[in-house]
């Protein structure tokens, strides 16, 4: 809404004077965004810590397996054998040897925390909340109170999830996918299980149900904001690609979390109310028999993955948008094929709904349906390829500035390619017969959905930090962090692909098979663990960088990166009402007007007057 025409409608609110209303229970989208960002940061470190713990366990198990192999080659009562036995015992006594239950619990929590609390919150709730309104020229989100509700429900969900660590029985151990009957019947969960319980699993389901609701509220807010609150001149095709990405992500959340909610709800009923949606008859754990009957575990998988696959795109699409934005900004070039990028984001979103069955090729579902899902999965490769090619096209002929956000964005492109290629294997139902549930899958989804999305978050943090906090981040620290992390994750997850080629199964807490305790596998495990510890430690650099820059970073100018979108037209950090006095400028240019021939400088900001762009220049938007 521009100031000239609707000045009488613009209510510029004063920021609330009380600290709690201003910074804690705030309806300001910027505060909510930062809250999401902090939540994701905390959750990421918790999740990473869990992964380090179970990676240590695996490396140790590997050593023990190797020693056991040596031991079996020796005479049982030789001195050497006794020494080895001592050594094995000493290793087993170390604190990071997890019991199998603990291992699975940590694994489950690692997956759940990272997928829900990091990958879903930071790119969307964090950066999206902060920058969507500013980039489209709005004073706030469409429903600020719902926005506050959304972050606090998410925090509640996180607390509920964390509470699972402290209840009797500990966190659930049925994986982040929580397949029933393992997750539906307490007796299935643990050794020597007695009586009711499995509170951890209940909390897990509850946490996810709350999260579904929080995401739904957030998604509604994003969609309405994007469509209704654009400032004058901000046509849909003048929105930065970040906004498009958040928009599509919000649509995906809107349509997919509804189904996850049902999966969670029915699972909760199965666990606590005596229904049997996911529990077939005639199950035997111990006497007395399970008296549920008639359900289908595959139904849960369908409901779960109906959400689960769009979820992958919920995690990665905002990253794609951001990376397109950054490549253009730092290559000082318009995005190659802006419209194609928009279509590709939409294409990924739409086709992403038709492919959930590729998680279930070996699940016993209808094999005819599997063929359809498999073909559709390959079709997702097309918009993904368009994106990759267009990113390369954006770099082509550019004048690339190597700032740390740009490096993270380039890292994203590389990781996206590496990870995406694993998908070509796994998306084929025939090939998946071999690769299903091996480390190949682990490597694949960590690269593309985990690490690539997290690189986009690094990029977003480095890029927007000056705007959010008014200070620049430290470049050398950022670069060192990038190099080590980039190398580290590639080593970790490509090694996992190699282990997957050998057929190493997922979610194994020990090496009870000959082929798993082979020197090759154990060495791979050790490489992965050591690199993981190094990479995880490197993340402290990021933390140091954030804390240091927050207090001692050089003051940021309004537009340190010489970017074009609206957030760079306002002070750093932005005032409470985003645009001074609530006067949102009218937009006259497309989002990526870099190096326009004949223009005074090499970028034209969106709110600059139409004359800033020479009439002779080829038209863009």
């Amino acid at each position, binding site marked *: 809404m521009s100031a000239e025409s609707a000045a009488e409608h613009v209510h510029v609110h004063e920021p609330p004077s009380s600290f709690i209303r201003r910074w804690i229970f705030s309806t300001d989208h910027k505060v909510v965004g930062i809250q999401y960002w902090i939540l994701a940061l905390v959750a990421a470190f918790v999740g990473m810590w869990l992964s380090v713990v179970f990676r240590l366990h695996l490396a140790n198990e590997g050593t023990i397996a190797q020693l056991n192999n040596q031991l079996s080659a020796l005479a049982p009562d030789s001195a050497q054998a006794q020494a080895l036995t001592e050594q094995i015992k000493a290793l087993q006594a170390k604190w990071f040897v997890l019991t199998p239950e603990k291992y699975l619990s940590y694994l489950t929590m690692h997956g759940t925390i990272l997928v829900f609390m990091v990958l879903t919150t930071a790119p969307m709730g964090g950066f999206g909340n902060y920058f969507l309104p500013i980039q489209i020229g709005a004073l706030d989100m469409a429903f600020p109170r719902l926005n506050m509700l959304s972050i606090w429900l998410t925090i509640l969900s996180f607390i509920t999830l964390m509470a699972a660590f402290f209840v009797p029985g500990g966190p659930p151990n049925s994986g982040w996918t929580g397949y029933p009957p393992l997750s539906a019947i307490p007796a299935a969960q643990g050794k020597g299980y007695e009586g009711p319980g499995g509170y951890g699993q209940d909390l897990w389901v509850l946490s996810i149900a709350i999260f579904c609701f929080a995401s739904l509220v957030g998604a509604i807010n994003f969609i309405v904001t994007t469509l209704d609150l654009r400032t004058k001149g901000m*046509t849909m095709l003048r929105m930065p690609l970040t906004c498009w990405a958040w928009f599509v992500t919000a649509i995906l959340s809107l349509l997919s979390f*509804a189904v996850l909610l049902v999966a969670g709800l029915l699972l909760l009923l199965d666990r606590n109310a005596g229904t049997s949606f996911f529990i077939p008859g005639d199950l035997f754990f111990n006497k007395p028999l399970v008296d549920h009957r008639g359900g289908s575990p595959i139904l849960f998988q369908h409901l779960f993955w109906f959400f689960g696959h769009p979820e992958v795109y919920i995690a990665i699409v905002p990253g794609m948008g951001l990376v397109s934005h950054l490549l253009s900004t730092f290559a000082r070039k318009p995005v190659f094929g802006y419209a194609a990028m928009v279509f590709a984001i939409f294409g990924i979103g739409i086709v992403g709904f038709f492919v959930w069955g590729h998680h279930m090729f070996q699940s016993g579902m209808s094999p005819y349906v599997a063929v359809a899902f498999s073909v559709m999965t390959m079709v997702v490769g097309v918009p993904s390829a368009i994106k990759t090619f267009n990113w390369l096209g954006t770099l082509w002929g550019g004048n690339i500035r190597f700032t740390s956000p740009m490096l993270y964005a380039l890292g994203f492109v590389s990781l996206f390619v590496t990870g995406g290629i694993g998908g070509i294997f796994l998306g084929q139902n025939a090939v998946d017969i071999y690769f299903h549930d091996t480390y190949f899958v682990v490597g694949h989804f960590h690269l593309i959905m985990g690490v690539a999305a997290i690189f986009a978050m690094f990029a977003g943090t480095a890029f927007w930090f000056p705007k959010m906090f008014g200070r620049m981040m430290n470049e050398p620290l950022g670069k060192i962090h990038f190099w080590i992390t980039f190398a580290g994750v590639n080593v970790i997850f490509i090694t996992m692909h190699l282990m997957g080629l050998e057929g190493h199964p997922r979610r194994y807490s020990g090496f009870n098979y000959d082929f798993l305790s082979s020197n090759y596998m154990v060495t791979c495990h050790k490489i992965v663990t050591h690199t993981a510890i190094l990479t995880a430690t490197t993340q402290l650099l990021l933390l140091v960088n954030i804390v240091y820059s927050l207090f001692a970073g050089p003051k940021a100018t309004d537009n340190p990166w010489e970017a074009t979108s609206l957030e760079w037209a306002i002070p750093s950090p932005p005032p409470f009402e985003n645009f001074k006095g609530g006067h949102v400028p009218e937009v006259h240019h497309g989002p990526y007007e870099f190096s326009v021939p004949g223009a005074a400088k090499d970028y034209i900001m969106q709110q600059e007057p139409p004359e800033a762009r020479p009439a002779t220049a080829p038209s863009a938007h």
Partner: protein
Amino acid sequence: MSEATAEKAVEGAAPATAAAAHAPVKSDPWYGGVAPFGTDSKKFGMWLFIMSDSITFAAILMAYTYMRIADPDWPLVFNAQSVVLSTIMTFVLLSSSLTMVLGVAAAEAGKRKRAAAWIFATAFGGVAFTVIHAWEWSHVIHDLPEGAMPMMWGCFFAATGMHMLHVTIGVGYLVILGLAYLSGKFKPVDVEVAGLYWHFVDLVWMFVFPLIYLMSTDMTKGFGH
């Protein structure tokens, strides 16, 4: 890259969008500064919620359908009495939708008190529905065998329970709305938004009623238990 090739590249470049050929038109609803659908943002938001929620209900009913197809010996558990009861419930819900419509109309006409009266009448319809439903539930629960319940009843409780949760929340929503609207805190559009929610609850019942009740009824069983 030399100047010449740069120009060539520009010439070879196709216009990125259809919009490129024509500059954006200021009167276009998508130009920005106005809501492109001409719908109030709150209403739009409620519609989005309804979209998502209808998918939730669809998923529950789809789970029920799945169970039903998988089990060829699905029991027809309802008798004529249950159908009469549920038909009455349908009537109550449909009528409460009508009162809601009247409430919205009164609010738009600026008749504050009359609107509030209709809103409370709607809430009363919701309460009546919930009471009849709860009575039916208590009978069903009473007759359930020990231990895990038969699949039919699981589906019944999941679908109608989710719906009843919506009705209950709706009643609370309507009461707050009526009071707030009476005291002038809410605007007519808020009444309309609440109306959307209430009609949606009604709409869902239009699917729950035939799928859960009518599809599982054996009329030969007559009345009584």
